[in-house]
Structure formats: C-alpha cells, structure tokens
C-alpha cells in the first residue's frame, strides 16, 4: 500500500513550452482521432513502422521525457503480453515445430500477435501524448468546445463542462485526503492487505465512508460558494478563448489527409 504519493504531475500533464504543447487542444484531439483511425487501417509492418516513427517524432518535439511517455504503457503491459500469448501459442496443435508439452509456439501467429501488440502500444502512447501535453483546463475547454454543437439537442454542455472542470480540480485534493484517512485508520490497526476479496473490500469501508461524507459536505459548501459568486449556470462568459490558429488547422489537416491516404492505400 503506497503511503507516499510520488509527485508526478497531475493527470500526467508535463508542463513545457513545445510546439506540441502550444497546439490547440481541439486540434490535438482531432489529430489523435485521425491517428487512431489510420492505425487501425494499417496492415503492413511498414505502415506500423511509419506510425512508430511518427509517434517517436512527436514525443521528441514535445520535450516530454521518454520515461514519462512510456509510463502510460505500464497499465497495459499485461494486455500486450496477453495479445502475444493468445495469438502466438497453440494448444495441442498438430506438428508443432517448437513445443513444451501441449503448448506450442506458432510462428505466423506470433507475428500476428506482435503486430496487434505493437498497434496497442502505439495507440496508448499516441493518446497519452494528449494528456501529457495538454493542461487539464485546456482539455476541458477543448472538450466542451467540441461538445457545443450538442447543445442543439438540449445536451447540457455548459453544466457538463463545469462538472468535468470541478472534478478535475478536486482529484489531487481528494487523493491527499484519502491518503490521510488511510494513514489514520492504519494507525488504528486497520489492515488493507490481508484476507480474501470480501475481507479486503470491507476493509476499505472506514476509508470510503469518511471520504464520501467529506465529499458530500464539500459539495454543499462549494454550491454555496458558487452561488455567492453569482453562478446560475447560464449567461456565463469565459476568460479563456480557444482560437484555432493556422498552425492548428494545418496540423489537423495534415493528420486527416494522412489518415485518408492510409485508409485508401491500405
């Protein structure tokens, strides 16, 4: 159980002043979407290699340390291995070249598995580049700007944007509070690491209950504070302005063009 919070920049955002950082959040989201489509259309190793080079180039330009860029792969490492195994290993196959009992390695299968695994790897790295180079404020502003057309069908765009923004704002604060409660209960003899699934789940009640009570009280107080500053949910203007500069349009256009080319040419 980690008692110590390593001060990794929140939400993986690594502040810096690179061309990638300076791109409009919406352009980045669009580029990521195009990249994803292109990635799933590629079916040659050459194409995959090109995609890899593109990702590597962007990481370099963004001046984000490689260690942090690769950190996003940790949670999916199991998925990569699983993909390799599922595709590359056979059970009771006839005439296996390499085998250990009923389990054998299937050459072509392994290659396919590797291909899929590399695709997942590049997908994860490519999308994590967005959160690495875009501040939480810019992300929520970008998302709500993109969602704006949904207002036509009465989707509460502004309310959702406000909720997203408040949620983001409170993640680090809530994490700190959770840590303190865990420490306090540990000091009262609570154990979080023993017993079966049921025991372990129950062990978290003394942490989750106070945390939720705090959160509800906080929500009440926050609502009062927001009302005191005249929040009504409507009629708001914004300090920040998202402007698509020529370079943002260019990045978006290039990404879309490449994507289309890839899909067409395969």
């Amino acid at each position, binding site marked *: 159980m980690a008692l110590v919070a390593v001060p990794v920049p929140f939400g993986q955002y690594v502040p810096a002043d690179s061309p990638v950082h300076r791109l409009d959040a919406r352009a980045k989201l669009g580029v990521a979407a195009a990249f994803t489509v292109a990635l799933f259309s590629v079916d040659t190793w050459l194409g995959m290699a090109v995609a890899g080079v593109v990702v590597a180039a962007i990481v370099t330009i963004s001046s984000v340390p490689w260690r942090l860029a690769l950190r996003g792969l940790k949670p999916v490492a199991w998925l990569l291995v699983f993909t390799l195994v599922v595709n590359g290993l056979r059970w009771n196959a006839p005439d296996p070249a390499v085998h250990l009992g009923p389990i054998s390695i299937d050459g072509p299968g392994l290659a396919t598995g590797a291909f899929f695994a590399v695709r997942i790897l590049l997908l994860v790295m490519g999308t994590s580049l967005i959160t690495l180079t875009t501040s939480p404020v810019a992300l929520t502003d970008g998302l709500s700007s993109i969602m704006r057309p949904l207002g036509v069908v009465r989707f509460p765009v502004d309310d959702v944007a406000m909720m997203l923004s408040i949620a983001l704002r409170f993640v680090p604060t809530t994490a700190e509070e959770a840590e303190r409660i865990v420490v306090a209960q540990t000091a009262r003899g609570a154990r979080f690491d023993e017993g079966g699934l049921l025991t372990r789940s129950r062990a978290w009640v003394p942490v989750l209950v106070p945390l939720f009570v705090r959160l509800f009280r906080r929500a009440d107080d926050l609502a009062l504070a927001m*009302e*005191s*500053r*005249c929040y009504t949910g409507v009629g*708001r203007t914004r300090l920040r302005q998202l402007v698509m500069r020529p370079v943002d349009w260019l990045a978006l256009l290039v990404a879309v063009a490449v994507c289309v080319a890839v899909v067409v040419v395969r």
Partner: protein
Amino acid sequence: MAALREVSLALEPGEIVAVLGANGSGKSTLVRMTNGLLGADSGSITVDGIDTRDQARTRDVRELVGVVFQHPDDQIVATSVEDDIAFGPENLGLPRDEIRRRVDQAIESVGLGGLERREPHLLSGGQKQRLAIAGALAMRPRYVVMDEPTSMLDPEGRSEVLALIGSLRAAGHGVLLVTHDLAEAALADHALVLSKGETVFEGRVEELFGATHDLPAWGLELPPIAVIARTLADSGVPLNLTDLRPAALAEALCR
C-alpha cells in the same frame, strides 16, 4: 431551535466589524444571511437599501457583498489561480477584457502575483485563503464578509490574511469579520459578541478586551499578550488595549 434571536448589526464601508462567539453561537448562520443565502424568519436584512429577500435583486446583493467562507478548499472551483478568480466575473457575463482586468487587479490586491497558472492543491493554506478572497474581490464588492478566515492557517498564513484584511478596510471596503479569536478582533473598529444566538455584547473592541469576567461565559478567551496588556494598563501604563504587538507594549512600558 433558534440559531439567531433578534440580532442587529450595521456595517459601513471603510470599517471592520467583528462578530465573535464560540462555535455554535450562530456566527455561520449570520454569514449566510449577509448575501441572501439564508433568509431571516423575522426582521430584515438590507444591503445598501436592497432587501436580501428580493429575488429579483439577488445578483445585485451578491455583487455588493463578497463572502469568504471558512475552508478555502471548499470555495476554489477551477484548476488554476487565475481561472478561479475569473469564475465570479464569468458568472456575471462580463466581456473578456473586463474579466482579465479584474483578475489582474485581484491577484495584485492579494499578493498572488506570479502564481496565476498554479494549481490550487499546490498552494499553501494562506495562499488558498488569499485566492478565495481574490475571487470575492473580483466581483468588486463594497462589503466583504469573512467567516473565520484564519482558523485553519499557520502563523505565516494568518499574518498574510490579517494584513490583507487591514488593507481591504484601507481601500474602503466594509469588512465583517466573523471569528472566535480575540486577537483577530483586535483589528476591528467595533465588535458584537453572540452567545447561543443572542447578542451579549456590542461596542468598541477596547471595551470587549476589558470585559475579562464575561469572556469565559461567552466562550472567548483573551490571548495571553492581551492579558499582559491588561495588567500593564491596570498598573497605569498608557497603552492601547487592542494594539497587541509586543513591540508596542514594550515601548509603552519603557516610556
């Protein structure tokens, strides 16, 4: 159970009024009434003539009265300092350059220059509280109501915030300072003490500091330095009972 019973007070621009009382004395209820969050069962609450019950003018009331609550974390809404200060002006639907102007001025008034892009959880307690005050100031209020602004702060944060309160008065704001700390109340021009929802004292702060026998019953306590000041004053040392700076006392003593 009545939280407040027949409490009256008046606040003018350019003065600090302290409302004191132990926890549960009704102070927080009073705070929520100053800007219309809560209404009174009887009696009236007006801000520059506007009745806080007038729903049509709630926005005007809340522009005139800025409220800073006790826990700064529970008032900060945005992911950066300047975005949070902008929250109020944004709610007022002001044009972008006006919002920018107000944010810059508020940051300067509270001394958070250089921290515009900082995320709130990385601020110290004192900085968070000053951010909350900046958020209120960006509404350009005439009156600022503060609920125990320094109770959760360390000494450095306390003195930052107290200095800021003094400068708010100097800038012409009317400040209502709700607290249980007599040392804080020393800043005020006059004071009101609430006990179990009722007014038990009203008058100048010096008189309050002199009421040593009543303070415990009201749940209040003279800060140790004020006890010394009292003793010295009783021995004939000419001093201001509410100037609690050790240097001022030493100086008066040696005269």
